[in-house]
């Protein structure tokens, strides 16, 4: 219940008795007939006004008289109404031949007939009569064309145009009570009656069932209601019907009065009745009862003391309600709308509050909107706090465009932080504490939140203690998830604003009078404009509505920070696996706050993402180092996470990368990785090791320096190499393989580094004991040799310096080849390595680079032993000296034989003269030497023949050219005064370049020809003979 009206006596202690009262639409004043004493001789039974026709209609002395509304002078006595019992009027817009016309009607019951008078646009037009069979108790127009009437037994309607009667329903209270309720869950408890079970919407037919002639007491009554509806009453029950005579769906069933009303009227929101009852001391008391028009709940009762109300009436379609007693006239003065709203909000009837505001009179549109916003705002809060309808509550906030701070503040401190409202026994704690009696939560609602009315308790969820903690927790999780969705939507909105380069977003913000803390928490919020006038007015009322909602532009960055940070907190609470996602995408999470939160919840992996997103790389790397070494760490133990992080850094942070890659690289230092010498090692390095906590050194090098992402391509490679040289040559090789093989780097320094690193590996592999070498088939040597052979960019001199003197001759030979020192290389093969076949292979390999390499080999084989070759020491004894000589002779012989073998095998590479000259004179030529001679002779004769052919061909060509020249020289063109260009047909003047095309006798300007040539297809076969004056084989005219 709340106070909808104030009862204000307007006129008291009237000297005369009020018999009738009528209120006009502008009815500020009450027109009291009695003040005009001569108005009527007897009591006026009824008064009506037909404003549109300017008439005051009075029913007195059983006749209807029309008076002027302005002067109250009699205009006309309707004689036909002699014997009138009652009357009713109607004014509305009717369409006559399609043209809207204001139609006013007056219906009068005269004895056994009904007379209807009609005015159109203030002009009297017509009257009609209808015979009546029964005594009419009450009647009203429902439309201009339809009258609803009641006898003691029945309600019926009369179609005026056709004069057709239709029975509506029985006019006894029981039948009305049995009316099917349009909304079965109506809160008004109606006593059950015989046909209460016939659910939904029933037609008229179903209620005529109830037509059992109960001894009817009182008489049926028909009363106008708002929105063209009528209320059909009998005793203490009333049924709403629409203007079409159908049961109205706008109400929760029939209206039940606490006692039979004496008078009934309405406002848009209420049904107002006067009722009388006996007081405890027996005195009769009169009450004005205000009931909600929809759910019929009693809103207010006003005491009229003991004066009997005679009439209740309203003006302007329910805008004003007047009550006339015998000597007093009261005005039912509507209580200020804010106060009314406040009252219904106190009982959480938001729907009613909304209705009140939408239908309220005397309120500025602007105020109405603001009030509706405030109601919705409160409703959203209430849905959240009291009903646990989080999704709906947040949806309402969204619709209102409320600042996200408002709903966030409803959450416990763990989520809302400093925004948290003081609120006892918040859900979060409730969810955590199983033992706690959660009903406390609902009972102890904060002062700002309205409590639920007991009367509506049946509708609300069973909030008191039945709800298990578990269920509560599930519901609370819903609350968190709803908020998550709410915030992601906001995030999207903010993102869009960012992409449109907006600086601010406008939100609806709540400002309470006492503290503006809510928005002061947000930076960059402009000072709140105050409206003292409004505040004054609202100051008079209870605190519920004591706040303002204003649109405030809020800095978008501040809002983004709030939204993202809160989202992060929600994720920590109920969806931890999304934390990483949020921190990896572009976000505005507050760094310090997020850092503290993540540390508190031990979300180190996510903390790394936070650092990365904010470019706090050193902090991230430090964290990764610490956790990488900590075996307890769940996600981050090992070097892998650190390596992965390094992979995400740009090339500009190269120094930082070097600083932090040292630890992962040195982790496996002991077992230097020889896998680089296995075929296909790259693939295995790149793929397989991703699952281990401590990836192999090579894998780290690949991932950090060489996986082909843009950063790796931009690293200073020499610096990488010099950094890696601090570890081991294996790592240099591993890295340089990518640089040289994949990225085709040709810089000499890298190739040098590669060669030296490979050499270092080989050198390290040479056994320390003297005279022992490493086998040529060793993969390490193979790799080195392959590189020395394939790379064109290393500096041979530098490598030579680093090659050991008494070892690795093969490598040296290939380096020498780079310098073109083939003889030297072959000497190495013959005298140091003493493997003549190696020399042969070497010749095969380099014969394309050096044509006479075989001859060089032969020279080495047959020549003297060079001085730098260590000779076996001549020993003192004669015998051994002899032995030595023999040995030398043997070797010499071996070399000679090999020479012959070479000559026989590669005869074409040994020119006859030189070869024979370099063989020792005493060489015995074997039989197979014949084939060598044959080959050589054949080669020479072939050469001779080829030369002869070439010479003859040359002669022929020369002859042909001469003939051609002669032919061309015979063409003669004479340029005279009349010579014109074949192209432009202009004269070929003196000193102008011209041309004659082969086969044509007409000259052409050189420029014309060039122009034409350009215009035509580019590939032109016929080349012109170009000539300039005085030039070539053309004869020029003498002028």
């Amino acid at each position, binding site marked *: 219940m709340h106070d909808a009206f104030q009862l204000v006596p307007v006129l008291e202690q009237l000297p005369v008795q009020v018999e009738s009262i009528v209120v006009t639409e502008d009815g500020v004043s009450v027109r009291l007939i009695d003040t005009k004493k001569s108005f009527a001789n007897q009591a006026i039974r009824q008064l009506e006004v037909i404003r549109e026709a300017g008439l005051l209609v009075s029913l007195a002395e059983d006749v209807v008289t029309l008076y002027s509304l302005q002067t109250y002078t009699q205009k006309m006595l309707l004689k036909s109404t002699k014997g009138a019992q009652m009357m009713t009027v109607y004014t509305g817009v009717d369409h006559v031949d399609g043209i809207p016309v204001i139609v006013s009607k007056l219906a009068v019951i005269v004895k056994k007939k009904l007379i209807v008078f009609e005015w159109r646009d203030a002009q009297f037009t017509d009257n009609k009569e209808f015979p009546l069979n029964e005594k009419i108790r009450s009647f009203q127009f429902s439309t201009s064309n339809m009258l609803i009437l009641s006898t003691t037994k029945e309600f019926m309607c009369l179609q005026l145009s056709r004069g057709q009667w239709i029975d509506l329903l029985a006019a006894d209270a029981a039948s009305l009570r049995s009316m099917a309720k349009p909304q079965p869950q109506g809160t008004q408890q109606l006593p059950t009656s015989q046909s209460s079970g016939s659910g939904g919407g029933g037609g008229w037919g179903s209620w005529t069932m109830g037509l059992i002639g109960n001894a009817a007491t009182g008489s049926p009554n028909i009363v106008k209601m708002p929105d063209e509806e009528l209320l059909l009453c009998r005793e203490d029950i009333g049924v709403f019907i629409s203007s079409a005579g159908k049961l109205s769906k706008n109400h929760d069933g029939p209206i039940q009065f606490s006692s039979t009303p004496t008078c009934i009227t309405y406002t848009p929101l209420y049904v107002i009745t006067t009722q009388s009852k006996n007081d405890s001391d027996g005195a009769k008391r009169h009450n004005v009862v205000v009931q909600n028009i929809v759910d019929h709940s009693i809103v207010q009762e006003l005491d009229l003391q003991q004066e009997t109300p005679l009439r209740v009436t309203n003006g302007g379609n329910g805008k004003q309600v007047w009550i006339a007693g015998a000597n007093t006239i009261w005005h039912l003065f509507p209580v200020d709308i804010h106060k009314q709203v406040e009252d219904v909000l106190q009982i959480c009837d938001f729907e009613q509050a909304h209705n009140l505001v939408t239908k309220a009179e005397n309120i500025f549109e602007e105020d109405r909107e603001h009030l509706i916003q405030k109601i919705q705002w409160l409703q959203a809060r209430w849905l959240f706090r009291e009903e646990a309808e989080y999704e709906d509550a947040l949806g309402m906030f969204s619709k209102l465009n409320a600042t996200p701070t408002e709903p966030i503040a409803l959450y416990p401190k763990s989520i809302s932080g400093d925004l948290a409202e003081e609120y006892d026994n918040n859900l979060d704690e409730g969810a955590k504490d199983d033992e706690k009696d959660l009903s406390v939560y609902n009972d102890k609602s904060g002062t700002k939140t309205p409590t639920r009315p007991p009367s509506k308790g049946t509708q609300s969820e069973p909030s008191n203690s039945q709800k298990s903690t578990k269920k509560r927790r599930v519901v609370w999780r819903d609350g968190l*998830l709803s908020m998550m969705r709410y915030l992601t939507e906001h995030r*999207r909105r903010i993102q869009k604003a960012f992409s449109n380069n907006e600086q601010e977003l406008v939100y609806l913000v709540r400002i309470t009078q006492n503290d503006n803390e809510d928005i002061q928490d947000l930076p960059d919020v402009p000072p709140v404009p105050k409206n003292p006038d409004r505040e004054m007015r609202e100051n008079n009322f209870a605190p519920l509505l004591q706040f303002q909602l204003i649109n405030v532009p809020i800095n978008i960055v501040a809002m983004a920070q709030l939204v993202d940070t809160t989202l992060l907190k929600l994720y920590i609470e109920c969806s931890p696996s999304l934390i990483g*996602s949020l921190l990896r*995408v572009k976000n505005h999470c507050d760094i310090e706050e997020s850092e503290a939160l993540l540390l508190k919840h031990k979300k180190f992996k996510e903390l790394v993402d936070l650092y990365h997103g904010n470019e706090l790389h050193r902090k991230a790397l430090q964290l990764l180092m610490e956790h990488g070494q900590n075996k307890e760490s769940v996600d981050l133990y090992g070097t892998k996470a650190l390596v992965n992080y390094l992979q995400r850094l740009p090339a500009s942070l190269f120094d930082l990368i070097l600083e932090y890659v040292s630890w992962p690289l040195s982790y496996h230092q002991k077992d230097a990785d020889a896998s680089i010498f296995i075929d296909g090692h790259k*693939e295995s390095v*790149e793929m397989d090791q*991703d699952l281990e906590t401590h990836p192999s050194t090579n894998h780290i090098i690949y991932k950090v320096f060489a996986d082909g992402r843009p950063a790796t391509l931009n690293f200073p490679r020499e610096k990488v190499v010099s950094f890696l040289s601090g570890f081991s040559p294996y790592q240099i090789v591993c890295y340089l393989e990518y640089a040289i093989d994949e990225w085709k780097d040709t810089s000499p320094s890298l190739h040098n580094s590669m060669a030296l690193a490979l050499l270092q590996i080989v050198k390290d592999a040479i056994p320390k004991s003297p005279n022992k070498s490493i086998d040529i088939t060793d993969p390490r040597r193979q790799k080195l040799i392959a590189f020395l052979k394939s790379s064109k960019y290393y500096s041979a001199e530098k490598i030579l310096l680093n090659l050991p003197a008494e070892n690795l001759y093969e490598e040296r030979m290939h380096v020498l080849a780079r310098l073109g020192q083939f003889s030297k290389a072959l000497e190495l093969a013959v005298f140091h390595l003493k493997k003549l076949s190696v020399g042969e292979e070497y010749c095969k390999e380099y014969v394309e680079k050096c044509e006479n390499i075989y001859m060089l080999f032969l020279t080495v084989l047959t020549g003297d032993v060079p001085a730098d070759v260590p000779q076996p020491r001549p020993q003192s004894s004669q015998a051994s000296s002899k032995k030595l000589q023999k040995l030398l002779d043997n070797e010499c012989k071996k070399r000679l034989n090999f020479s012959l073998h070479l000559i026989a095998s590669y005869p074409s590479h040994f020119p006859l003269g030189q070869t024979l000259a370099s063989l020792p004179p005493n060489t015995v030529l074997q039989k197979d030497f014949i084939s060598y001679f044959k080959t050589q002779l054949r080669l020479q004769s072939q050469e001779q023949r080829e030369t002869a052919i070439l010479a003859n061909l040359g002669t022929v060509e020369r002859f042909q050219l001469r003939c051609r020249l002669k032919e061309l020289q015979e063409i003669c063109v004479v340029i005279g005064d009349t010579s014109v260009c074949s192209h432009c047909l202009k004269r070929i003047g003196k000193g102008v370049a011209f041309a004659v095309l082969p086969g044509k006798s007409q000259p052409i300007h050189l420029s014309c020809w060039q122009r034409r040539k350009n215009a035509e297809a580019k590939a032109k076969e016929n080349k012109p003979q170009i000539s300039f004056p005085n030039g070539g084989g053309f004869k020029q005219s003498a002028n």
Partner: protein
Amino acid sequence: MPYNKKSFSKASIIVVLIGDSGVGKTSLMNQFFNRKFTEQYKATIGSDFLSKEILVDDYVVTIQVWDTAGQERFQSLGVAFYRGADCCVLCFDVNDSKSFESLDNWRDEFLIQAAPQDPENFPFVVIGNKIDVEESKRMVSQKRAMAWCQSKGGIPFFETSAKEATKVEEAFQAIAKIAVEQEKEYELYK
């Protein structure tokens, strides 16, 4: 022999295609649903979906594929329906390194907006499109893409060409299967 078709309990499974603009999301759709391809590029605005019935493990499944705008300025419309998706297909162009690098971002944004119940096991599929372009222009090797998929918990990876209809059918078939399995699992969980 008539195939004994069973129908799947859920009316349709929803698949969302996301990825940078110009990687060929719309073309993949067109190829799969209409077997058509056009060289012309027209940016998708907002989002659009096509659906058809396909057979997955004896189930008749209506697959509903949402094509989304890759360009940021057209995106605002196209995120609301992320929430109901059964499978998310991350698309990139194998000849455009950047489109591959932004997969991480697409995946994270999707997870945030969709907020699935079990983000770690939400089914993603990666499609590397435009493999018809000559090998020398290729910027993202299969190896690299697969390594990425592996690092995200073994996301299935397909290389397709919407132009030459290479592997498009297979990829969508697999996507449908994954989505159905997800849905089944979800129902079981319920």
